[in-house]
């Protein structure tokens, strides 16, 4: 296990070095990160914007998926990893040295529906959503759905469930929410980046799920918020713990993070699905950067911490245009504390 990881890691490093060697800036500090595809558009925007102000630092982010990000940071082949689902205790133990989770942005999952007969936005409770994805609710005119959609004539149509076939942080956030609202989901299916789906068709990527939903009358699926906003696919409103039905939006996601901020654990590994607070959208989650608390190369450590410091402050301005939800101020201050705790050979980096 160990050796194969290193073998893979060496390949990645070799590729990274070749890629970085081409521009030939000998004095530049190269930072290599890898992980969640969800962060990729934001990281690449950051990389180019940060590079304009700090030409001495070059950030290279490879979007290889959250699982890959965790494996790469554990094998120390990258300077930072990135993930949509926090590392488990076992994964942290495998890394041996302490790893920090620094939230850099927020993700959310929108529920897309295709009901040609219905023009009004549907309101769904978490339990109903879980029962649909468990295969217990199979028709759109089920009393459980009409209960929260008074005045909407729901068709007698079979529900076609669409889910992601590829492992994804989007899936993680979605099933994490279902497990919180439905004990049955928690026991029967569980929470992970890929699960054993009780019903439905698997489609690859957000575009695959959106395509399946658009093409299949009666379909329901889940897609990343950014994708839903860009593609304009019809989405449902989902009930939050305050009882409100909230449409997926960047604002509602930031509110969910603010609502959860009061109870953030020390290590910031937290799920914020079903977060309390007025107007909070319940199916959202943090996306983290992973880095070692004790750094060994001080010039890399300094460049990395400064880059992330910039990211959680100035970098947040690039969130909204890219349909990411910016971190609320209460979370940014927690990130600051984390970044200040980073040390290199025993002395603080910042």
């Amino acid at each position: 296990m160990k050796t194969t990881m290193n073998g893979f890691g060496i390949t990645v490093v070799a590729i990274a070095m070749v890629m970085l060697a081409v521009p030939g800036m000998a004095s530049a500090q190269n930072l290599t990160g890898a992980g969640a595809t969800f962060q990729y558009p934001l990281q690449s925007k950051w990389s180019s914007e940060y590079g304009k102000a700090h030409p001495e630092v070059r950030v290279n982010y490879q979007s290889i998926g959250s699982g890959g990000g965790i494996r790469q940071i554990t094998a120390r082949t990258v300077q930072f990893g990135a993930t949509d689902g926090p590392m488990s205790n076992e994964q942290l133990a495998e890394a041996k040295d302490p790893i920090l989770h620094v939230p850099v942005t927020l993700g959310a999952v929108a529920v897309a529906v295709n009901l040609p007969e219905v023009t009004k936005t549907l309101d769904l409770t978490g339990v109903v959503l879980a029962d649909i994805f468990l295969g217990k609710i199979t028709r759109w005119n089920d009393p459980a759905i009409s209960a929260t959609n008074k005045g909407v004539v729901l068709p007698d149509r079979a529900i076609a469930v669409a889910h992601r076939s590829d492992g994804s942080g989007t899936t993680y956030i979605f099933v994490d929410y279902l497990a919180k609202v439905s004990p049955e989901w928690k026991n029967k299916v569980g929470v992970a980046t890929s699960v054993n789906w009780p019903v439905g068709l698997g489609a690859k990527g957000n575009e695959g799920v959106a395509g399946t939903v658009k093409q299949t009358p009666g379909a329901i699926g889940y897609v990343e918020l950014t994708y839903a906003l860009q593609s304009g696919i019809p989405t449902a409103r989902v009930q939050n713990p305050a009882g409100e039905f909230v449409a997926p939006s960047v604002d509602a996601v930031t509110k969910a993070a603010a609502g959860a901020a009061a109870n953030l654990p020390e290590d910031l590994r937290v799920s914020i699905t079903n977060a309390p607070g007025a107007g909070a959208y319940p199916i959202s989650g943090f996306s983290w950067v992973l880095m070692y608390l004790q750094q060994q190369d001080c010039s890399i450590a300094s460049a990395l911490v400064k880059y992330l410091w910039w990211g959680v402050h100035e970098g947040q301005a690039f969130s909204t245009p890219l349909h990411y939800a910016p971190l609320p101020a209460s979370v940014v201050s927690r990130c600051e504390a984390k970044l200040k705790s980073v040390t290199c050979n025993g002395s603080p980096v910042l």
Partner: protein
Amino acid sequence: MQARPNTSGADTAFHATLVLAGLGVVTVLAGVAWELLSLSGEALSKGGIGFITGMTWDPVAEEFGALPALYGTLVTSALALLIAVPLGIGSAVFMSEIASSRVATVVGVLVDLLAAIPSVIYGLWGLFVLAPLLREHVQPGVQKLFGELPLFAGPPLGVGYGTAGLLLAIMVIPVITAVSREVLRAVPDTQREAAYALGATPFEVIRGTVFPYARSGLVGAVVLGLGRALGETMAVTMVIGNRYDISASLFAPGYTLAAVIANEFTEAFSPHYLSALAGLGVVLLGTTLILNAAARLLVRGVRHGGAG
């Protein structure tokens, strides 16, 4: 002809280079097999034979069985060959035996273009054009005609084994056609002329002289096509429905070995999970080796029985 005695040493260097190239290929294959086996060791030893016969793929409970994916791989590949072999060899015969050389060139270029399309394009086309077409127009009609058969049972989803097989057939046809065309062209014209001189019709010439001469090469073309069908990932995963299940219906969604690996590898979160995915790779490699060996035996049998 007698070989000249080696005077310069260039021949020795040439010989050594070729040996290295040959060994290099073997080393790469052995390396892949070794890496897959060592990575999958955990899943294979934990699951044993149950890893191959198991029906469940549950990453959360860490319960892994390969059978539904193996079944999907075999069914879609078989279906693809069923469609692609007659069409591919037929179009090759058309180009080499029937068509004028100008028409044959044009068709040949078009077939080669078909082979050059990236598989993700085939996949997107399959998802956004082929699948809706099948769902709206073909599958309901087929069900009206053969509604009783379990082969066509279930709601018409547009995606599933049948769609994947059909898409694979379209991807495999150019491979089979291109290789078959070259094989048929290699049949000496004297063979054809002799048959025509005996008063044979074009059909008799093709059946009686061209095919027996080209048979082992045609089997090779089909094996190449099979290889592409077994390993195809991107296009299949877009149209097969990605449901980890076994169904007799061609309209039902399923899964293939390559598709599971491609879908889940990047996000595999535990060593056991990663190991199970590598285990699927071992199953796929094993399937490919077995089918290739079978095809080679077939070619050998054909060569002994039909060279005449």
